[in-house]
C-alpha cells in the first residue's frame, strides 16, 4: 500500500458525494451525503467500478478509511461516541470545511 497517495490526509473533513450511479459501486447508500473525517489513508487500488466489468481498473483510486459519528449518520445514537467507519475511494469524497 502506498501511503503517500491521495489528496486527503488524516483529520480532513470530507462529505460523501450524494450521487446515484449505475454499476458496481462500493459506496453504500446510507453514507452518501454524510460528512465525516479521514481516519486513515490506505493507498492506491485498482478501481472496482471498472474491474467488475472486465476492464483494467486504471487509473488507480486512493482508498480511505472514513469515520462518521453515528449521530451524524442516523440523527440519533445509543452511545454518545459511537462511530461507523467506511472504506471509500477518493472520487466519492469532497472536501468540507
Amino acid at each position, binding site marked *: *500500500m502506498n501511503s503517500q497517495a491521495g489528496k486527503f490526509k488524516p483529520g480532513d473533513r470530507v462529505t460523501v458525494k450524494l450521487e446515484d450511479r449505475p454499476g458496481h459501486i*462500493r*459506496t*453504500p447508500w*446510507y*453514507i452518501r451525503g454524510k460528512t465525516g473525517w479521514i481516519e486513515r489513508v*490506505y493507498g492506491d*487500488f485498482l478501481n*472496482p467500478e471498472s474491474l467488475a466489468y472486465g476492464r483494467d481498473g486504471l487509473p488507480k483510486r486512493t*482508498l480511505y*478509511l472514513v469515520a462518521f459519528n*453515528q449521530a451524524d*449518520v*442516523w440523527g440519533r445514537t*445509543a*452511545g*454518545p*461516541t*459511537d*462511530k*461507523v*467507519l*467506511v*472504506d*471509500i*475511494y477518493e472520487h466519492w469524497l469532497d472536501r468540507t470545511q
Partner: protein
Amino acid sequence: MSDTPADAHGHEHPKHELSHYAKRIYAIRDLLVEKGVLTEKDIQCQVEYQEARAPANGSKLVAHAWVDSAFKARLIADPKAACAEMGIDAAAVNEFMVLENTEKVRHMVVCTLCSCYPRPILGRPPDWYKSFNYRQRAVVDPRGVMREFGLDLPDDVEVRVHDSTADIRYLVLPLRPKGTESHSEADLAKLVTRDSMIGVTDALPAIPE
C-alpha cells in the same frame, strides 16, 4: 457428496430439485471441465482449500498476541507478515487490518454491500453475517446486535462499526478475558470464538480452575 448418485458424465449431482442458480453453477462447472479450462481435480482441490480455512487460524493469532506483546505489535503493524510467522497463508489475499479492542473501545465488522470477510483467517462467513438483517442492523443498531450475542456495553464504551466495503478486510482482536493469567496459549485459543473476531461479542470467559 456421498449421498448423491453418479450421473453419466463422471461426477455426482444432488438428488433433490435444484434451484435456478444451483443448476446454472453445475452447468458452468461442467462446461469449464468439458472445455478443459479446469479439471475435476482443480475444483476438488479448491473446495478442500476453502474448507481447510477455519476460525482456528484467527484464534491462534489472537491467543499468541495475548501472550506476546511484541507479536501483538507486529500483528497490528503488518498483519500479513504476522500471519506468515504463524504459518498462516494470507499472502494471496486482500489487505487486512487488525482492530484491537480495549476496555473503552469495541470494534464490530460488517459488509453492508455483500459479504466481504477475512476468509484466509476465519474461513467462510456464517450465514447470519450474509443476511440482510445483520447487514442492516450492524450499522444502525450495533449495540442491539451485540446484546443479542450476549454483550451489553455501558454507554461510555465507544462502539466502532467497520463497514468492509472495498479492498480491506478486518479482524477484531478481542480483549483477553479476566482471570486467564494461568491459561496456556492453547487454552486461550479455545476462548477466541469466530464471533469475537467479527466483534459482535467478547471472547469466552476464563476456563474454571
